[in-house]
């Protein structure tokens, strides 16, 4: 998992938070700020360094100091310097998105449950093949979903499985993390632990037998009930 190992790589940390603000070279800071603003993609500290001409490149630590200082400068402004997976970017503070979203006539894309579930499986279970995804979801995965995810650069083929047909193993990308405004996979919602299965057969048998007895009497009612429930649900949906 190339992506994952990259994620483990942490950017160097500024060692001393007390003196750093004083130490920031103002000219470097100005340039760093301009670079982050001008780049239309998140920029890593390393990438920022390389924008400087070779003989004038500041140390990474200086750039980090500048970033910290800039972050501080924008503390009270409506935009913030945010660290996402592939680097730093300026973005409008989220509490203002309500206003800003009105700028764009086009509605933001909505993603189907099928797509989101596929994406979640790839994110949490990577690397996975399409077959693995289908096993988990219990249905076939349409090619268009995989295609959409690939085109959005949210997933990529990280390797091929040594199996018949050498199916592609999918993993998520940094762009996926960037899109969801996070720096690494750990920032995703926690996946619930799967409860341990303690299915002693006796137990199960017992319960199940009980159930099926009850069922013979209740069956009709249950079915009716379920239909009613579903109908209600449909009523809700179709009403929307």
């Amino acid at each position, binding site marked *: 998992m190339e992506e994952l190992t990259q994620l483990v790589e942490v950017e160097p940390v500024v060692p001393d938070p007390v003196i750093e603000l004083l130490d920031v070279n103002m000219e470097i800071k100005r340039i760093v700020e301009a670079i982050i603003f001008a780049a239309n993609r998140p920029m890593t500290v390393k990438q920022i360094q390389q924008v400087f001409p070779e003989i004038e490149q500041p140390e990474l630590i200086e750039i980090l100091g500048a970033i910290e200082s800039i972050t501080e400068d924008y503390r009270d402004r409506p935009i913030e310097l945010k660290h996402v997976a592939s680097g730093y970017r300026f*973005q*409008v503070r989220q509490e203002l998105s309500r206003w800003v979203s009105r700028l764009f006539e086009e509605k933001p894309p909505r993603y189907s449950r*099928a797509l989101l579930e596929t*994406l979640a499986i790839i994110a949490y279970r990577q690397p996975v093949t399409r077959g693995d995804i289908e096993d988990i979801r219990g249905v076939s995965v349409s090619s268009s979903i995989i295609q959409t995810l690939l085109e959005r650069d949210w997933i990529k083929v990280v390797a091929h499985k040594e199996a018949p047909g050498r199916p592609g193993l999918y993993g998520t990308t940094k762009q996926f993390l960037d899109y969801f405004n996070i720096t690494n996979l750990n920032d995703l*919602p926690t996946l619930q632990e799967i409860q341990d299965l303690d*299915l002693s057969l006796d137990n199960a048998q017992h319960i199940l037998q009980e159930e099926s007895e009850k069922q013979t009497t209740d*069956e009709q009612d249950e079915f009716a009930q*379920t239909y009613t429930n579903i109908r209600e649900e*449909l009523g809700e949906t179709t009403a929307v």
Partner: protein
Amino acid sequence: MLESTIERPTAPQALAIVNGTPFNQLPEDLYIPPDALEVFLELFEGPLDLLLYLIRRQNVDIINIPIAQITHQYIAYIQVMGNLKMELAAEYLVMAAVLAEIKSRMLLPRQTESEDEEEDPRATLIRRLQEYECIKSVAEEIDLMPRLERDIFAAVVDVSKLNIEQALPDIQLKEMLLAFQDVLKRVDQLSHHHITKEPLSVRERMSAILENLKGADSLLFSQLFSRKEGRQGVVVSFLAILELSKERLIDIFQHEPFAELRIRTAGAIHSLDGNRGDGGVDAIGGSRASSAGSSH
């Protein structure tokens, strides 16, 4: 009794068979219009999702699935849908078979432990349901996470006004020579073209003379020669002047008989046209002189 519902062919008229009893029509209060059923199916992301729905409706833990009951309901759904001629994904039917198998197993007397070594289909199903439910719920959470385009907007700063220097392509001399070699080959094939092979220094000098003439109305013939260049240089300049004249790129003229020859670009006549007052005579003299020059 229940397990037979899958295999038994449905009576043609029956909409559904529930517990072995064919339903010839849906009870009034259960009626769901066919297109609504389609919508209903679209609500589910597959058999696991439908099963989860059925289980959650019972308010029971997945681990304690009332398997017989759920199986029954599940199959009833499938059959209703089948009878409504709805296209049902194969996965739904496969699940029906799995459920039926589990149920039949449960009805049989318990087998010996050794036979139970093969995976208990019920355990498998429960694990799959659990895993699917976990994914389903994180997918819902991910959908709620702030994201670009909807909740997050990048700050855009214009850079179009910056003086951005684009790196220019490099050429190797050999690339140009190779290209020219091709040109020459093509020219050879088109025999009506003839590229004379005069020394390059002459051509270069031709450009230089024209360049010099740009700044001035005209130059004295002698101004085009530099003593420092020696004999060779003089020859080159002279050849260049003749060639320029031959190609009608310059005019050689005299202001008056026996005056020193003067050179100007042929284009200068044109510019003088605009100022008829001072140049008309010179122009005529010039063209005469130039034809004389080329006869050398």
